[in-house]
């Protein structure tokens, strides 16, 4: 019987298979950051162990780093200690590190792909759930805990119980104005935050094949929000073209051998998935969340749902609690929700295409009074590219703040946070209670919706701005 893409990559990494034991899988790339690694390095020290493959390991600083005044000492002493701990650990154990201030620093899931380190058919792990991002290349990439980080550092392997496989097939083409972010939010709303539990999702179908690499990363990134261990997309010409010329991409004869192998990384026609979901792309529209988990979302044209409409008592209770926390009432049109803050950035939507999309919407317009807009590039490279294209000027001319690269307000570990009761439209991945700051309220949106929302001060799509412009006579 044929095999799925995920099964092929898995099989190619089995170091040891024995009856009654989890497979021991080889790990091709291990990404590290400051938050989930200190206790792992500590464990190595206590047991007198070393890092087995420093040449398959790379670290960057992202979660804790400030996005302002990066040339000054970090004000928060606890954050500073954590970054200094990573620097010492990398120096002691011989791990390559891109610290704050380095040209290759940035959000770990932006850095790996842009260096060409993420390639089809690899196993990629990181102590971060959004490692699923790298699945966009046809890699099997998943988040791990700190105990597993220590395990990979010491052995370059992980014992893993098998995943189940799920196909999410997106038929047709996305309508104009509908983005990868809208699509993944709609998928999560459909299958639920636990729907992907135990599965590796393979996204396929016409709409997926037409996406750019960066859009594919946005899709795979949020697989974890559907509960899945990983998300994958079969590599194709788009993937090979994206990799060409990147620092660590294979060249010459190596590239030929690699591409020959990469072309085999497709689900066989006779392979069977454990579960299949089909979504029609043509019916989709800009999508936003109204609740406190990423499955609580709806098209922007909808209203806040009535918790009483949920049959399942636990979903009903969750919706009640969400509305209470979010300060919303059932039936309120989503377009009437006013925000204080707009955040463009994160491993979900902090790449150059995301910044271009947001800039195109806000160019020649202004951020609404009383709204603060933060634009945080996903990496220094993205930042430099944006500056070269003049995007930073577009944002600052509109009244937005142009910041240094990092995770920033996605999780509020650094000073970029919401104040209690403040509400954001955010291009990040999680709308959990307090995620962006104690008492903060988050609506997940695409970069285009974020930019349009910054202009109107209420949840809006770019099409809403055009309608408003048309209603206003020229020259007035």
């Amino acid at each position, binding site marked *: 019987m044929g095999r799925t893409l995920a099964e092929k990559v898995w099989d190619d990494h089995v170091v*040891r298979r024995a009856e009654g034991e989890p497979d*021991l899988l080889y790990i091709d790339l291990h990404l590290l950051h400051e938050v989930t690694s200190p206790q792992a390095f*500590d464990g190595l020290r206590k047991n007198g162990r070393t890092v087995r493959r420093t*040449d398959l390991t790379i670290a960057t600083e992202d979660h804790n780093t400030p996005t302002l005044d990066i040339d000054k000492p970090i004000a928060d002493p606890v954050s500073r200690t*954590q970054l200094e701990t990573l620097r010492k650990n990398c120096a002691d154990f011989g791990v390559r590190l891109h610290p704050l201030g380095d040209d290759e620093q940035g959000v770990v899931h932006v850095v790996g792909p842009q260096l060409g380190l993420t390639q089809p058919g690899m196993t990629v792990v990181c102590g971060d759930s959004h490692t699923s991002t790298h699945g966009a290349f046809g890699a099997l990439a998943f*988040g791990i805990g700190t105990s597993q980080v220590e395990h990979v550092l010491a052995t370059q392997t992980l014992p893993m119980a098998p995943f189940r496989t799920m196909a999410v097939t997106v038929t047709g083409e996305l309508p104009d104005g509908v983005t990868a972010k809208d699509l993944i939010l709609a998928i999560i709303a459909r299958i639920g935050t*636990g729907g992907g539990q135990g599965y590796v999702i393979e996204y396929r179908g016409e709409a997926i094949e037409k996406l750019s690499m960066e859009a594919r990363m946005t899709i795979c990134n949020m697989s974890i929000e559907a*509960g899945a261990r990983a998300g994958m997309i079969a590599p194709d010409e788009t993937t090979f073209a994206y990799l060409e010329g990147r620092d660590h991409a294979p060249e010459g004869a190596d590239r030929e051998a690699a591409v020959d192998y990469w072309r085999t990384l497709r689900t066989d026609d006779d392979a069977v998935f454990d579960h299949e979901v089909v979504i029609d792309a043509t019916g989709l529209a800009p999508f936003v969340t109204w609740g406190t988990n990423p499955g609580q979302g709806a098209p922007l044209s909808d209203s806040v749902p009535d918790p009483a409409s949920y049959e399942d008592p636990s979903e009903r209770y969750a919706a009640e609690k969400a509305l209470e926390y979010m300060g919303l009432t059932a039936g309120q049109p989503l377009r009437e929700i006013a925000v204080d803050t707009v955040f463009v950035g994160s491993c979900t939507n902090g790449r150059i295409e995301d910044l271009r999309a947001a800039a195109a919407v806000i160019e020649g317009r202004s951020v609404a009074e009383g709204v603060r807009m933060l634009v945080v590039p996903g990496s220094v490279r993205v930042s430099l590219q944006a500056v070269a294209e003049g995007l930073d000027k577009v944002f600052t001319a509109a009244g937005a703040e142009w910041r240094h690269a990092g995770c920033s307000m996605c999780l509020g570990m650094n000073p970029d946070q919401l104040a209690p009761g403040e509400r954001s439209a955010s291009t990040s991945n999680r709308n959990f209670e307090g995620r962006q700051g104690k008492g903060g309220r988050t609506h997940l949106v695409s970069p285009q919706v974020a930019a349009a929302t910054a202009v109107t001060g209420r949840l809006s799509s770019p099409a809403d701005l055009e309608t408003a412009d048309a209603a206003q006579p020229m020259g007035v």
Partner: protein
Amino acid sequence: MEAFTTHTGRAVPLRRSNVDTDQIIPAHWLKKVTRDGFEDGLFEAWRRDPEFVLNKPERAGATVLVAGPDFGTGSSREHAVWALQNYGFAAVISSRFADIFRGNSLKNGLLTVVLPQSAVDTLWQAVEADPATEITVDLVAREVRCGSFRESFELDDNARWRLLEGLDDISLTLRQEDDIAAYEAARPAFKPRTLTA
């Protein structure tokens, strides 16, 4: 890791679904570089509400958490497991756990037990009716007991053996050095390296 065989203790009923790891331990606690000292961060935001179940005096000293479905979603932070253990929990019962959280818990000897929602409902009712009610989580028998209530649970033999023996995964894997070295010798040359020789 400490071995887990069987545990009996009073319980905390947490009637919420989708309890994400940001709720279990908020991000600002993640700046610590140790595995301990997270107990005060456990459910920090919810604990500011005096009515929150963990704040009830009759729940003090409880060691079994009985939670709603999809417990531990979101961030991979193992700190969530450490926070539960630092606070004193030895086991968590739910009808569904997020994968990464479950993996992290078993690596630290925090037993996560999957029971059908109907069984979770029964336990909620029992421990809410009488906070002194004790729940036994028996890994040897793979069974949860509470008064006359009994329900068996599944956990694969290998994971159970590691927990019962309190085994260190890394030591076990290092015994497979020959297999790892053989795999490495056969890896294709085109695979990327982060360091150039």
